[in-house]
């Protein structure tokens, strides 16, 4: 045990408040230096990329249409990455999530278009497909103890075949149901967009305020009100600007229609972001997911049902993949054998890792999927404006993923070195 003394030389008072913004920043910096860097590199990277592309291709990249487009491009990857975070937190991997999305999309398309089911039924069928896939993977990994890498590699192939069988010889099945199409192609009325923004900011402010008050009452150290205020204001500005931009009129390049409003997929992602974050951060189940990822044997000795928990996480992953599949079907207005294929999965894994989720398990948050997904989308969106060579795009995306994985590995080493 090489006990490098811990670098946290901050003095957190035993009771009372953390003293103001300066202290909060120092605390945060101490955590970053201790290896707990979270989403910091991704956020910095995102800002750097946006500045870079704005300087190089300002008018096009910064156009309002492109901003909405960014959301459209990243939505499915973000949701897929959210699911992957559940298994990455365990220290496992799901290579089949992309084709789980594709298979669910195929089920959606067949039931909706070929069999004429109503959209809620078809949607339910797609989600159940995801659940079953996740349950099977979970059983094989947790009960039989096959490494998840192997199980999901096999599923990667099997699901690809299953998709072909479901879709049949026709090749492509169109989606014509308005309720499904509106998710990725429709926008909220302007007033509703503003209302949504208000609800988010007020909800965040209220819930964090109540948490601070609860800790004060219990005599525990709590965040200073000045720090709280800065956070709320920062969120308000961010959400306000985004809503304002999306509520501007924008024109599709090749069509003459003028549209405006926040895309409907945004509230979908927000609900998932808040709901899944709640599950992982505030419930016993979520806490146990982190425990299993951090030290599986310790979790087992604490009486946690490790196998059941792993199966549940794989079900979360594949079910969210099914949601991503629905988004892909909605975006493309159709489902084909390539839906969910190609780089979809790798982009999603990349999004999670770039966002700050560790490949070694135990570290990561749902919001990493959103931040990382936006980084991937900005690259995919900005690079074609600069170069038409798709080879360069692949290379750059690959390099960004490598950088993220290196940051992950280095911060893990730091965390280990700063402890016992």
């Amino acid at each position, binding site marked *: 045990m090489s006990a490098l003394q*811990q670098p946290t030389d901050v003095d*957190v008072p035993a009771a009372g408040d953390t003293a103001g913004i300066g202290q909060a920043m120092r605390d945060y910096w101490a955590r970053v230096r201790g290896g707990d860097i979270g989403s910091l590199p991704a956020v910095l990277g995102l800002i750097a990329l946006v500045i870079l592309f704005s300087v190089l291709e300002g008018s096009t990249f910064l156009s309002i249409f492109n901003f909405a487009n960014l959301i459209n491009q990243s939505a499915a990857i973000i949701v897929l990455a959210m699911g992957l975070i559940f298994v990455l937190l365990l220290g496992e991997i799901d290579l089949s999530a992309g084709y789980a999305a594709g298979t669910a999309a195929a089920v959606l398309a067949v039931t909706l278009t070929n069999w004429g089911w109503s959209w809620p039924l078809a949607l339910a069928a797609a989600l159940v497909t995801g659940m079953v896939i996740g349950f099977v993977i979970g059983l094989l990994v947790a009960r039989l103890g096959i490494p998840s890498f192997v199980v999901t590699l096999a599923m990667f192939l099997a699901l690809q075949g299953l998709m072909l069988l479901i879709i049949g010889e026709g090749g492509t099945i169109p989606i014509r149901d308005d309720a499904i199409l509106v998710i990725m192609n429709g926008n909220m009325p302007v007033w509703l967009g503003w209302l949504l923004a208000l609800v988010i900011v007020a909800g965040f402010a209220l819930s964090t305020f109540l948490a601070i008050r609860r800790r004060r009452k219990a005599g525990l150290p709590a965040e200073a009100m000045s720090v709280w205020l800065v956070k709320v204001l920062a969120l308000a500005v961010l959400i306000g600007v985004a809503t304002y931009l999306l509520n501007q009129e924008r024109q599709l390049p090749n069509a003459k229609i003028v549209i405006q409003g926040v895309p409907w997929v945004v509230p979908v992602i927000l609900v998932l972001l808040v709901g899944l974050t709640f599950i992982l951060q505030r419930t016993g189940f979520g806490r146990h997911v982190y*425990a299993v990822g951090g030290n599986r044997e310790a*979790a087992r000795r*604490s*009486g946690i049902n490790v196998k059941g928990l792993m199966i549940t996480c794989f079900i979360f992953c594949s079910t969210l993949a099914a949601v991503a599949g629905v988004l892909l079907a909605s975006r493309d207005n159709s489902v084909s054998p390539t839906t969910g294929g190609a780089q979809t999965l790798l982009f999603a894994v990349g999004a999670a890792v770039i966002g700050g989720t560790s490949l070694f398990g135990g*570290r990561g948050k749902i919001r990493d999927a959103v931040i990382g997904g936006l980084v991937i989308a900005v690259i995919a969106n900005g690079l074609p404006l600069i170069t038409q060579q798709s080879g360069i795009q692949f290379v750059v995306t690959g390099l960004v993923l490598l950088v993220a994985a290196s940051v992950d590995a280095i911060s893990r080493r730091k965390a280990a070195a*700063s402890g*016992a």
Partner: protein
Amino acid sequence: MTTDTPLLSLRGINKSFGPVHVLRDVDLDVRAGRVTALVGDNGAGKSTLIKGVAGIYPFDSGQVMFEGAPVSIGGPKQANALGIEVVYQDLALCDNLDVVHNMFLGREMKSGVTLDETAMEKRAGETLKGLSVRTLKSLRQQVSSLSGGQRQTVAIARAVLWNSKLVILDEPTAALGVAQTEQVLALVRRLADNGLGVILISHNMNDVAAVADDIACLYLGRMAAQVEASTVDNRQVVELITTGRSGDLGLQPEVAAAGGVA
């Protein structure tokens, strides 16, 4: 405080890992209000024995009696429900969780479906204060940022957080400095004086001499002897540990010798 029925009593315990027969017909009695030191050489089977009691894995055969009644401990939760707490040799902490999360792992306090973080943090703080632990900077520190001794204190605090009847400590002072070792031994004594049963596994004869009321010695998976600490001296204990016998005490010569072959 001692009563006639032992708090924990093991009879004829056997445990094998595949072809390796680790525990052979082990008997052990632990009385409430007393510190039972469990000693033995590396690989004698001490950790294996207490992991069985903790419900980590089942014994192959033998009887476990708790407070006079036969029990079968099918898992860690059942052991906890009986009032058995264990500080493991490897501490069993999750590096990626903070001190409070680790202390309540698997037994989180809740209000509704959500975790009651404030209540847990308060209780954790009180327990650590009760152990006179002042070296922790924050209860919200990740365990990965703690020193070896600090981790050990967290693991011990986790075991005394609950209203337990039997506390088992597997080499709890291994990573501790002089002052902290002193503290832990005082705590061990205090627990027993409060009427709890305590099993202390240790390689340190000074620790054993300082706090043990009873000494149980495992030799190659057999219980060589269980005696009152006051009836033996240091040399005899060391002999029991290294050869399985000391004068009249311990295994029969042929058994001790046979154990060495198997």
